[in-house]
């Protein structure tokens, strides 16, 4: 695949390096000419100097034949415009933007960016998962459908403890997919009884996450 990476900071650099290692054709666009020289010294001639939101730069980068444009600069407004211009002017099939301010993640998708990656959210998420005894952990967002995979620990005082799944009314758009009890993984059936200490792995629409938390924890 031909992939254009906009932004030659740490993220852009390591992304380009990994993509090259996977034998993709990569071109990196970076505004600072000195940084371009540094990158080219390490990765070979893969970087050009320029403003990736400028059409002339994208033409020089061969945007019309690019399969993917990835915008990973430190400025959200630049990442948004780079993706939108790539799509509107060059019909690039897939645009991916780094979102620096997590508040912008939904907005970017609403404005036509195919995939958004929020570093802040990922880091928060990993830290949350690493904190012991958290009762409800958001594990992963699934793209497109606003679904999330969550892990909820059933407490002694939970309304669902010692009850069979058939008796429990789950919020809309949620499904319990697995139960981890000690070392064993239980594939749930209507007869499965939930016990305090169970880790429930569920898929939930992001809007129902809070409701599910209140029910299970």
């Amino acid at each position, binding site marked *: 695949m031909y992939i254009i990476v906009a932004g030659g900071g740490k993220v852009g650099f390591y992304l380009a390096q990994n993509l090259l290692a996977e034998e993709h054709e990569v071109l990196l666009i970076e505004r600072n000419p000195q940084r371009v020289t540094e990158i080219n010294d390490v990765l070979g001639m893969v970087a050009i100097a320029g403003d990736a*939101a400028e059409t*002339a730069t994208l033409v020089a980068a061969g945007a019309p034949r690019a399969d993917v444009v990835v915008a990973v600069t430190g*400025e959200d*407004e630049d990442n948004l*415009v780079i993706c939108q211009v790539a799509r*509107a*002017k060059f019909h690039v099939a897939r645009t991916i933007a780094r979102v620096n301010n997590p*508040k912008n993640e939904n*907005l970017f998708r609403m404005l036509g960016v195919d995939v958004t990656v929020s570093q802040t959210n990922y880091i928060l998420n990993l830290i949350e998962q690493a904190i012991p005894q958290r009762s409800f952990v958001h594990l992963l967002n699934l793209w497109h459908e606003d679904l999330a995979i969550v892990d909820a620990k059933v407490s002694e005082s939970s309304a669902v403890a010692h009850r069979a799944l058939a008796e429990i009314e789950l919020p809309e758009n949620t499904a319990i997919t697995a139960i981890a009890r000690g070392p064993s993984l239980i594939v749930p059936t209507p007869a499965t009884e939930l016990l305090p200490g169970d880790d429930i792995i569920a898929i939930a629409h992001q809007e129902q996450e809070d409701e599910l938390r209140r029910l299970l924890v």
Partner: protein
Amino acid sequence: MKVVIMGCGRVGARIAALLDNTGNQVSVIDIDSQAFRRLPVAFGGETVIGTGIDEDILRRAGIEDADAFVAVTNGDNRNIMAAQVARMVFDVPEVVCRIYDPVREDTYRRLGLTTVCPTTTMSAIILDLVMRGNEDEGHGRGGDG
């Protein structure tokens, strides 16, 4: 009418002052508090410090019931993003966005934004003045007319 202006440079401050003078409700957003010194002493509108690409800052400036939003910072991309937020998230009826880069201006005009490109506008005016001078003198300096 209620107008939110992002960017308190020469243009933003002037638009704000003119609207304020004619009895409109105006709020101006800028990341630099010093920028508000460009507003007249008698300015009766609101000033909000922050970036207009942040929905919370726009809310604080009263975007939710604004009749118009004007994006005139010196960053094209910031203006483009804020204008889209105003239109798509807050349904502001009138959104105007300044874009210096003529190609980007063309792209976003086609995508439905109301845009102003000072580069093409100024070039056209100046070119017009230059050419008119040429016509007045017949065939220009050194001509025989």
